[in-house]
């Protein structure tokens, strides 16, 4: 492949003005998923659940593959798979170490199941590949409303447990002493996380979910610790990655996911540099040093 072929495949903006309106629903879907990913990502970071997200994604993939095989709705299948996996992790893994081994056990099993279902499936092979690497090139308006409705559940759910969940994530011991239902909150969060993972898989696929659920929040944490700013930046970054990624991908012949993950990664790199600069300039400096 020559350089010209490469650029033509990756960056192709011919007829862009005519293409753009056709993808209005896709762009909207991307924006919605950006909001969900950015919001839930801050808690994923706080609760150190990056690995769990990956594990949930693999079971979600198995669920979606099974749905594809039996001709059921793929989004529904992936929702069932990931909510099941998330709740299972929530119930089984109480401590971080235990959790990691549980995830390590579940993840390959889920992936294996998914591969089994996909090999039995005799439909279009693009559908198969899409589950792993992302697909929403064309979202119809029914799918969009399902997506929006589910995303709303996650956002409203998160908003209603925001403060106690923050308390329970930052310092579970003190939160327990103050009567915060730490365990119930943890399960509720895993439930919402399961939904968020299933939604994100529709854009970037099971293998690349972390780019939507971790990277934006991790990037935000590089440059600020003010809770409000973290949330705003994280959502902003995730939306930039999804919407920007879709817009870049429109003309080319390549799936959306590499654009989304690359944008996400570039944002993270920039934030890291900005964070390092801020730290060197004395982020933790006090106006007047403590007397001790």
């Amino acid at each position, binding site marked *: 492949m020559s350089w010209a072929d490469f650029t033509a495949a990756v960056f192709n903006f011919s007829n862009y003005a005519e293409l753009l309106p056709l993808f209005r629903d896709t762009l909207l879907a991307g924006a919605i998923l950006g909001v969900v990913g950015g919001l839930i990502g*801050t808690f994923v*970071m*706080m609760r*150190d659940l990056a690995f769990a997200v990956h594990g949930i994604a693999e079971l979600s993939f198995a669920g979606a593959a099974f749905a594809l095989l039996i001709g059921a709705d793929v989004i529904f299948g992936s929702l069932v798979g990931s909510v099941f996996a998330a709740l299972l992790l929530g119930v089984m893994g109480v401590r971080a170490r235990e959790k990691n081994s549980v995830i390590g056990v579940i993840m390959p099993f889920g992936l294996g199941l998914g591969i089994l279902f996909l090999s039995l499936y005799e439909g279009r092979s693009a559908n198969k590949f899409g589950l792993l690497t992302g697909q929403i090139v064309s979202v119809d308006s029914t799918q969009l409303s399902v997506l929006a409705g589910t995303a709303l559940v996650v956002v409203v759910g998160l*908003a*209603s*447990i*925001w*403060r*106690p969940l*923050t*308390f329970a994530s*930052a*310092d579970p*011991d*003190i*939160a*327990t*002493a*103050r*009567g*915060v239902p730490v365990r119930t909150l943890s399960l509720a969060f895993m439930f919402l996380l399961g939904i968020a993972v299933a939604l994100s898989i529709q854009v970037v696929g099971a293998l690349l979910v972390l780019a939507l659920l971790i990277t934006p929040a*991790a990037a*935000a*944490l*590089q440059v*600020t*610790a*003010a*809770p409000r700013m*973290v949330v705003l930046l994280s959502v902003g970054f995730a939306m930039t990655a999804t919407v920007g990624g879709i817009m870049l991908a429109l003309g080319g012949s390549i799936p959306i996911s590499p654009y989304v993950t690359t944008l996400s990664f570039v944002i993270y790199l920039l934030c890291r540099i900005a964070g390092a600069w801020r730290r060197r300039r004395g*982020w*933790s400096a*006090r*106006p*007047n*040093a*403590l007397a*001790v």
Partner: protein
Amino acid sequence: MSPSAPAIISLSAATLKYGQRTLWKDLNLQVAPGEFLAVLGANGSGKTSFLKILLGLSPLSSGQLTINGAPAKRGNRGIGYIPQQKNFAPDTPLRARDVVGLGVDGDKWGFRLRGKSYHQRVDELLAQVGATSYGKIPVGMLSGGEQQRLRVAQALAANPQVLLCDEPLLSLDLNHQKAVSALVGQQAKQHGTAVVFVTHEINPILEHVDRVLYLAGGRFTLGTPAEVMTTEVLSKLYGTRVEVLHIDGRLVVVGRPDSVLDGHLPEDEQSHSHDSTHGQEIR
């Protein structure tokens, strides 16, 4: 502390057993408002369990416990809790003032809509513990001592009548130990908060302590520091010769047979079993 004041914490015939093992038995204790009670004892003697029971997180094996006249219950807003210093992860998305804020309204549902009184209260609390200068710095970038000040502020946020402290000075340097215990002592004297302070090291808090509850080997002793911290009393309690020395106004307990009496230690307490076995002076 006046003996006639109605007790805020009241234990009668309280007993804690784990299986066959009795940690303490028939404990009768009244803690008055403004009183500073230090709970000392060997590792695995039930100090931390004592706090868990006061917090309503675990039950007594038998006996009665009331806090402010009512049975202990989980999530009592009248109780502030300061645990061992545990470092926040460097990338925790909270600033110092947000950590304090968790004490103000972190247990409420939803998110904060109007923040004026919240911010005022947080500013007040930061000033009270001398943390104003680093209120906006990410908590993960603060030293252990600074983080522990924030936990004190957080615990005081709801104006508690009882302050429960579980080894809050552990892993702090001497200056921060003094500063944090002074904050807690001040809260007892000036605001009439009853303090229960679990520690294996009495010296940093000695000047603030009204009474000592010393737990060891299934027994306990209760009294003022002068009454309890003597060679005779502790030797009797431990059932073996234990020496209490006074060095430069500090108390040093020599020869405490931790490992002999308590056999196996809970995992999380083993880390500091070393210095307590060899007296409290090694720091």
